[in-house]
C-alpha cells in the first residue's frame, strides 16, 4: 500500500443498536435484534429490523421520494461524519467520495410499484414518475450525495453479501489513488422490504426457522437451519493517515490488509479453497503471519454448508488456532446482506480499546464438522493486546472478501 488508510468515523444502524456504542453494548450483553416481522405477502417472518429515526437527517418529503436503502445510508453517513469530527464545510466537496456496498438494489421499489398498480389492473399510466430514480443502481449513494451536497464520485458496489467489506476496500483504494481526500464507504441493505428475498431463500431451503426469534440465527451450531434476513447499514469515514493525524482525529484502526476473489464454481454454493485464498491474500498484504490475527469475525450465515465451508477454510489457514479467537455477529442481528461486512467489522473494532471479544449467540452444540476449535461462546472473552482483527464476508456468485484491521499505535 502506498498510503496508510485509517478509520476515523463510524455511523451505523443495526437491528440491535443505532450507533456504535449501543451496538457494541448489545453485543457484549448478548442482546439479539432478531424479531418477528410482518411481511406483506408472507405474513410473520423472522428478520432483523432497524428502528433509527428516518427523519433525523431527512425531511418527510425527501424520505417519501427516496428509498429505505438510501435513508439508511443518509442516517449512517451523517452519523459517521459527526463521529469523525470532520467539518464538511472545510473540505472541497469534489474530493469526497461515496462508495456504498449493496447486495442488490431496486427489488423493493419494483415490487412496491408493481403491487401499487395491481388495483388498477396493471394500467401502466399509474406508474410513478419517481420510480426510475429510486431503482437506479447508484440510488443509495446518490441520495447520500444529494443530501450532503457532496460533488465527488458516488456509486454503489454490487457484490452480494461481500459488499460491505468491498465498499470499505474500494474507499481505501480511492484514497490511495489520491482520487479523494475523504471516503464515506461501507454498505447498506433494505432487503427485508421485499417478499421476493424471503421467498427465494425459503424456496432454496435456506431461510431460518425457529419458534424463538432470538435463537433463529445460530452459526456453527448443530441445529442451524438457515439465514435470518435483516436490514442495516454501516458507513465509515476513511482517510489517509497523514490527513487524520494533521487534524488530530481519533483513529479506530488501520486497514492493513484486504483480499477479494471469486470462486467461479457455483451460483450459490461457497468454495473453501477460494475462501482460503482470499484470507491468505489479505494476510499477505498485511505483512503478518496468521497467528498474529487475534479475532476472526466470521461470515457464517447459519446455513449448514456455508458455515462448514468457512470453518474448514479457517482451519486450513490457522490450524487449531489456539491464540486466534473466532466470533460471529450474525447470531445477534441476522444477515444484513450488503451491510454485513461493514456492520460486523464495526462491532469488533471497540475490542482494540475494551479488550473484549464478543461471544457467538445460540451456540449450544458446536458442529464439529465445521472444525472451529476456538470460538468465543456463552460470554465475552477478555484478552490482552488485541492487535489485528480479520473480517470475512462472502456472497453469491462466489464473491469473497476479507479485511484486516490493525490497532493504531
Amino acid at each position, binding site marked *: 500500500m502506498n498510503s496508510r488508510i485509517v478509520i476515523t468515523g463510524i455511523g451505523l444502524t443495526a437491528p440491535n443498536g443505532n450507533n456504535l456504542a449501543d451496538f457494541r453494548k448489545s453485543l457484549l450483553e448478548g442482546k439479539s435484534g432478531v424479531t418477528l416481522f410482518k411481511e406483506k405477502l408472507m405474513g410473520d417472518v423472522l428478520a432483523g429490523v432497524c428502528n433509527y429515526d428516518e427523519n433525523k437527517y431527512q425531511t418527510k418529503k425527501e424520505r417519501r421520494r427516496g428509498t429505505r436503502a438510501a435513508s439508511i445510508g443518509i442516517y449512517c453517513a451523517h452519523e459517521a461524519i459527526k463521529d469523525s469530527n470532520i467539518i464538511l464545510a472545510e473540505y472541497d466537496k469534489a474530493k469526497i467520495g461515496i462508495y456504498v456496498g449493496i447486495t442488490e438494489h431496486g427489488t423493493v421499489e419494483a415490487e412496491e410499484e408493481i403491487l401499487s398498480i395491481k388495483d388498477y389492473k396493471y394500467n401502466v399510466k399509474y406508474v*410513478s414518475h419517481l420510480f426510475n430514480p429510486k431503482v437506479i443502481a447508484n440510488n443509495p449513494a446518490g441520495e447520500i450525495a444529494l443530501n450532503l451536497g457532496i460533488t465527488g464520485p458516488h456509486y454503489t458496489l454490487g457484490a452480494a453479501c461481500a459488499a460491505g467489506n468491498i465498499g470499505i476496500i474500494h474507499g481505501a483504494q480511492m484514497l490511495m489513488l489520491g482520487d479523494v481526500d475523504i471516503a464515506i464507504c461501507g454498505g447498506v441493505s433494505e432487503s427485508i422490504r421485499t417478499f421476493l428475498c424471503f421467498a427465494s431463500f425459503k424456496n432454496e431451503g435456506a431461510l431460518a426457522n425457529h419458534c424463538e426469534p432470538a435463537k433463529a440465527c445460530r452459526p456453527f451450531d448443530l441445529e442451524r437451519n438457515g439465514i435470518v434476513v435483516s436490514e442495516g447499514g454501516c458507513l465509515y469515514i476513511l482517510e489517509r493517515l497523514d490527513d487524520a493525524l494533521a487534524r488530530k482525529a481519533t483513529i479506530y484502526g488501520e486497514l492493513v490488509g484486504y483480499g477479494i476473489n471469486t470462486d467461479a464454481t457455483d451460483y450459490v454454493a461457497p468454495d473453501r479453497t477460494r475462501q482460503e485464498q482470499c484470507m491468505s491474500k489479505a494476510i499477505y498484504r498485511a505483512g503478518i503471519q496468521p497467528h498474529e490475527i487475534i479475532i476472526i469475525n466470521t461470515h457464517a450465515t447459519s446455513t449448514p454448508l456455508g458455515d462448514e465451508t468457512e470453518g474448514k477454510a479457517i482451519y486450513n489457514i490457522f490450524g487449531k488456532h489456539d491464540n486466534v479467537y473466532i466470533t460471529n455477529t450474525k447470531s445477534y442481528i441476522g444477515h444484513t446482506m450488503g451491510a454485513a461486512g461493514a456492520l460486523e467489522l464495526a462491532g469488533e473494532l471497540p475490542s482494540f480499546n475494551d479488550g473484549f471479544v464478543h461471544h457467538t449467540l445460540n451456540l449450544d452444540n458446536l458442529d464439529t464438522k465445521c472444525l472451529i476449535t476456538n470460538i468465543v461462546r456463552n460470554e465475552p472473552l477478555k484478552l490482552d493486546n488485541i492487535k489485528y482483527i480479520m473480517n470475512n464476508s462472502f456472497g453469491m456468485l462466489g464473491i469473497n472478501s476479507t479485511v484486516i484491521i490493525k490497532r493504531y499505535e
Partner: protein
Amino acid sequence: MTREDIMKSVITIIQEVMPEKDCSSIQDTDVPFVNIVDMDSMDFLDVIMALQKKYLIEIPDADFGNMRNMKSTLDYLETKLASK
C-alpha cells in the same frame, strides 16, 4: 360529490405529498399552489398521479395547466367527474 368534498380530497393529497407544509389554508381561489406551499414540479406530478388514482381518471399533460391552483383544479375535476 360536492365541490367541497373534492376540495377536501385535494388538500389531503397535497398534504400527503408535502408533509412538512401546512396545507389547511389552501382556499378555493386562483392563488397558485406554488405560492402557498412551495410546490415543485415533482410534487406537482405526485399530486396529479394521486388524483388520477383516487378518481380513476386520466389527466393528460395538456390539461396540467388547469391544476395550478385550487379554483381551476376544482373546476376541472367537477367537469371531469360529471362526465364519467
